[in-house]
């Protein structure tokens, strides 16, 4: 009994780390640009499809495919920000509408390019590790480790590098950052690409676990919203912790309640938290 719970929890944490990664991309864009990016799920979907393109269709190994796909989505994010977000960034309503529609445009393009049917990427590593009460795929452990490494790298970039400091400054106060000689527009462009890349990385790591289809991005998008709001908008530790909580909650619901309901539960939680405490579990009261 307890051992089953333990094993489920471990599996939940492993998935949750990847959710946290996807949600972090949303948090960064929100923090640095004050923009809610409804296209975030589309970048996630692109990450998965590019991994499929490079590894299955072009025959690269998994790691190369992962890096190529993350880099490609970064570039797409940068262009997207320049062309679509920059002209209207201050108009919140328009940004929401535009990023919502642009996500469909990207989805349709992928549908035409790759076809509407389900695709799958075989596991890049086989084998399992036995833990009390069950077992864990080695691949999931490695994916989790990569996700944690990316999060750690992100912390380091934000803390120690010039661009990271600039990002934090812009997040703090755009105007002051501009006066201090920071190229605000460039920092925002970079941050947007970076956010898209995090979504793509999470998707690349999850792609051997989940099926690929053109509309696969909406579910992680809403999950990322839920995680970001629960974690208190813009808080990075809050986002990571909530991501992991969500992973565990989902696995437990899937096991103890029903696998079809586990997809619904995060959104019910989201609506509850928004109605009760919109600043999130870890957010401060305004």
């Amino acid at each position, binding site marked *: 009994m307890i051992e089953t719970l333990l094993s489920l929890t471990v599996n939940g944490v492993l998935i949750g780390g990847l959710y946290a990664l996807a949600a972090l991309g949303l948090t960064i864009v929100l923090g640095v640009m004050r923009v*809610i990016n409804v296209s975030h799920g589309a970048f996630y979907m692109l990450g998965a499809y590019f991994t499929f393109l490079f590894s299955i269709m072009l025959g690269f190994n998994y790691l190369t495919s992962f890096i190529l796909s993350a880099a490609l989505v970064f570039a797409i994010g940068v262009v997207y920000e320049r062309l679509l977000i920059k002209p209207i960034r201050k108009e919140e309503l328009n940004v929401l*509408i535009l990023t919502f529609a642009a996500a469909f*445009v990207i989805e349709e393009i992928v549908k035409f390019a790759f076809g509407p049917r389900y695709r799958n990427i075989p596991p890049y590593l086989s084998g399992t590790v036995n833990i009390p009460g069950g077992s864990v795929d080695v691949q999931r452990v490695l994916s989790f480790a990569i996700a944690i490494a990316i999060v750690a790298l992100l912390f380091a970039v934000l803390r120690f590098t010039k661009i990271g400091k600039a990002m934090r400054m812009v997040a703090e106060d755009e105007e002051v950052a501009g006066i201090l000689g920071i190229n605000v527009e460039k920092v925002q462009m970079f941050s947007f690409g970076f956010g898209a890349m995090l979504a793509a990385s999470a998707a690349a790591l999850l792609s051997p676990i989940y099926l690929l289809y053109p509309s696969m991005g909406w579910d992680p998008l809403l999950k990322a919203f839920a995680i970001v*709001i629960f974690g208190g908008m813009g808080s990075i530790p809050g986002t990571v912790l909530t991501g992991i909580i969500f992973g565990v909650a989902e696995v437990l619901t899937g096991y103890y309640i*029903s696998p079809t*309901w586990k997809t619904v539960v995060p959104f019910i939680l989201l609506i509850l938290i928004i109605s009760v405490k919109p600043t999130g579990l870890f957010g401060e009261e305004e």
Partner: protein
Amino acid sequence: MMAGKLSSITFLNRKLLAVLVYLIAASIIPLAVPSIYILHVLILAHIFVIYAASWDILTGYTGQLNLGHAMFFGLSAYTVAITNTMLNFPLILSVVVGVFSAFLLSLIVGIPCLRLRGPYLAITTFSFSWILFLLASSAMIWLSGGEEGVRGVRTFVVGSVPNYYLSLVLMIVSVLILYRIANSETGLILKAIKEDEDAAMACGINTTKYKLLAFILSGVFGGIAGAFYAQYMRIVTVDVVTLELSASAITFSLIGGIGTVIGPAIGAYILTILFEGFSWLADYRILIYNLIIVAFVLFLPGGLMSLREKIKAERGTGGEEGE
């Protein structure tokens, strides 16, 4: 001054004339073109006109972005279908219950949204419609029938021509009601909320009451469209709660002009006829609808209704404006 007044009168007359010409044309179409297919397309257009106008009364007037409008349409359609086929309710009762369910949903979504602003509202409406989609497509498939849908819904009238006139009347009445409200004092207050909610509150306006009213109107008319759809199509599938349907409310409204009621109605009418009428376009519908949104947000956020003024403004500041 005088010239401006005169031109506004002729403009009003021209609008009335256009409405009159449309009404005459719309009422003789079934006699002139006895094509079941064309009538079917027009009936769908009438339904989506109500759907688009009902989105606009909330988002266009109060600025509260609803990204999941299909939830009202879909919940009502499913409720009509399920109560009618599985519980054997008389159709009229099913329709009442269906619209009532949309009304209840507008309260459930609307009340928590009242104290929320900006992105929270968009995310909440989005999540609600997504939950409904997940329930209909997987978690509650025993009730919704999934892709198969709920079949065998009864209909008020049989045949294309009676359904055409019924939908026409329903559309005209619905749009008229929404248009009258939008152009009354209430509409003005809703627009004031959109411009600056704090300022509206400072003027002593109970913004909560008006926002909830807009939510209810939006939900109920969205539900009316869904209920009519269910009895006309006689089958309700997952299509009625998709994100694509929610997005199309935005496309219709943006192309016509958000915050005008008539603009979204015209947008829905034209686009539905275009895309349902030319079936080879169907594959590209979602792509084109959303490209339209992107293009209009970037280049013509006021929609086609604003084109007149835009052209006027670009022709130079001379003429009427140089008083």
